[in-house]
């Protein structure tokens, strides 16, 4: 078409004049840098690569697991029950793109939901989160304000005559809940009322045991559900991991990462579950974490539609979970979750030091095997649109 190429070129040149690189950088630099840092660290620690062990084809055909019989709390038997305290949702970048007069809205860059509503009141700032909780914040010495972002990190807010500037300071580690495990007595243990479905229904998911939990018994080394799968497990030697990270960071080891002394494991998870409308549940936005999606859901009042995905490692003896990862390490981190799509995986993590992250459920302080477990569900308005489904795979021994 005559002139179309030229017109497109002219349009681009014209439009380019209207964009400010500084504005774009000021607004997005922090988010981009944080995500790049994390991804590069993960790649350096062994994400992807041709030597990855493909696990996707190892499905064993188990589509329905008898949760009642495989779970924790059989009547008349003592068991260890782990409860998870409320945790902040997985940190998301925020976007401060809208505001007017004395009010400014901060959006979650992933879900698009309003994270905070900021209002200038006199010399103070009032921040109201989605649940209605208020922070009344006074000015810092430099006149800025520091508000806690519910999804993680803090936001530095500067208000001046020309408008608002909000910089998000991402948390250095994923927000983590606290898990408390307690041994229940046989008398106190309620009789189970679960169906024998591998995917707890909306009515029973509150009590369903899952491979994320202490006491769960695996009936196979690999279970590959239709919808979520452990697709890759890869071991690097400590030397390989150190070399890879050093290549990225030079001679200075990143202070927020544990320096691995033993093999480093990287895991990639694939999510193919579809929402009732046939679209991938990932298209609805959501959260990824190391927790059982059912448990995560229970601990949060989630009104928005979104997926919940979890993956972690567990220590196993005789097919039974005897150790879990109750929380991600404080800095320096020995386990890193990467909830963003990397190398075609939808979720994944790297364990720099397995011994540092696994915590015994009870008195058994050793375990013979380790498993990767994962689960995903789609929630909306307090109900499950797609009940949580789970997969797992025994981790092969490191060479």
């Amino acid at each position: 078409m005559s002139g179309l190429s030229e017109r497109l070129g002219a349009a681009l040149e014209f439009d380019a004049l209207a964009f400010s690189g500084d504005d774009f950088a000021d607004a997005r630099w922090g988010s981009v840098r944080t995500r790049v840092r994390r991804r590069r660290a993960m790649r350096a620690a062994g994400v992807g690569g041709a030597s990855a062990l493909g696990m996707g084809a190892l499905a064993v055909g188990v589509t329905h697991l008898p949760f009642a019989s495989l779970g924790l709390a059989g009547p008349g038997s003592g068991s260890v029950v782990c409860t998870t305290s409320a945790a902040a949702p997985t940190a998301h970048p925020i976007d401060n793109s809208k505001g007017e007069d004395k009010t400014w809205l901060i959006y979650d860059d992933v879900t698009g939901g309003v994270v905070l509503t900021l209002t200038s009141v006199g010399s103070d700032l009032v921040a109201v989160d989605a649940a209605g909780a208020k922070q009344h914040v006074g000015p810092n010495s430099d006149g800025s304000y520091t508000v806690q972002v519910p999804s993680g990190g803090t936001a530095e807010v500067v208000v001046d005559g020309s408008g608002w500037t909000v910089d998000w300071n991402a948390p250095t580690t994923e927000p983590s809940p606290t898990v408390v495990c307690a041994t229940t007595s046989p008398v106190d243990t309620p009789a189970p009322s679960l169906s024998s479905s591998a995917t707890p229904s909306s009515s029973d998911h509150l009590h369903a045991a899952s491979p994320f939990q202490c006491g769960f018994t695996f009936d196979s080394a690999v279970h590959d559900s239709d919808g979520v799968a452990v697709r890759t497990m890869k071991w690097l030697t400590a030397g390989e991991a150190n070399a890879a990270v050093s290549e990225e960071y030079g001679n200075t080891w990143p202070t927020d990462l544990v320096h691995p002394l033993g093999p480093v494991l990287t895991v990639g998870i694939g999510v193919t579950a579809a929402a009732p409308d046939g679209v991938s549940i990932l298209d609805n936005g959501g959260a990824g974490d190391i927790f059982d999606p059912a448990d995560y859901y229970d601990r949060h009042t989630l009104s928005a539609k979104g997926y919940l995905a979890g993956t972690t490692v567990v220590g196993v003896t005789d097919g039974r979970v005897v150790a879990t990862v109750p929380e991600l390490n404080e800095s320096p981190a020995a386990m890193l979750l990467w909830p963003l799509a990397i190398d075609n995986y939808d979720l994944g993590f790297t364990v720099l030091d397995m011994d540092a992250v696994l915590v015994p459920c009870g008195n058994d302080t050793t375990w013979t095997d380790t498993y990767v477990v994962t689960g995903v569900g789609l929630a909306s308005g307090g109900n499950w649109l797609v009940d949580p489904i789970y997969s797992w795979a025994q981790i092969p021994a490191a060479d």
Partner: protein
Amino acid sequence: MARWEPVLDEVMRERSPRLLAYAALLTGDQAEAQDVVQEALVRSFSRGRAFENANVAEAYVRRAIPSVFIDRLRKRKAAERAHNRDVAIGRRDVPTPDREAVLDVRAALAGLPPQERACTVLRFYDDLTVPQIAREMRLAEGTVKRYLADASGKLARMLGEDVDASVEADAVPVVTPATKGARK
């Protein structure tokens, strides 16, 4: 500071206007263009490459932009949206070319369904061949030709010009045959 960070900063501050403008051609929306460029930056700088300078990095980011845009399309029920937009365009009453009314090529592009818009930009701005576009968009070559053909017809009506989507001997010209000259 890691070695890539100064390059990232330079690309974002000095090169992003053109990257954003390019993304805006694809998306037809400036806000979405920013999201697309941001994602392209993350993808490009996460690959572990040691960009020698901002020129090299900018080229990588620019190359990633269509891919990011297409991925986003797929994740957003692209087919539905394309259909809806297509229907809207079908109702548009443009009986005769009115250059004064439709000279804005951006508006014309924005009126195309996303897949057609992407094919058009890749073909007519990036000068990619049909096979190259097919690889870029992970589509069959025939599909690309169809998108280009459909787009050319609509652009011809909106811009009041003959549009030829033919790019190679085996391409299917539509609307009015007219050979497109090499893009400068």
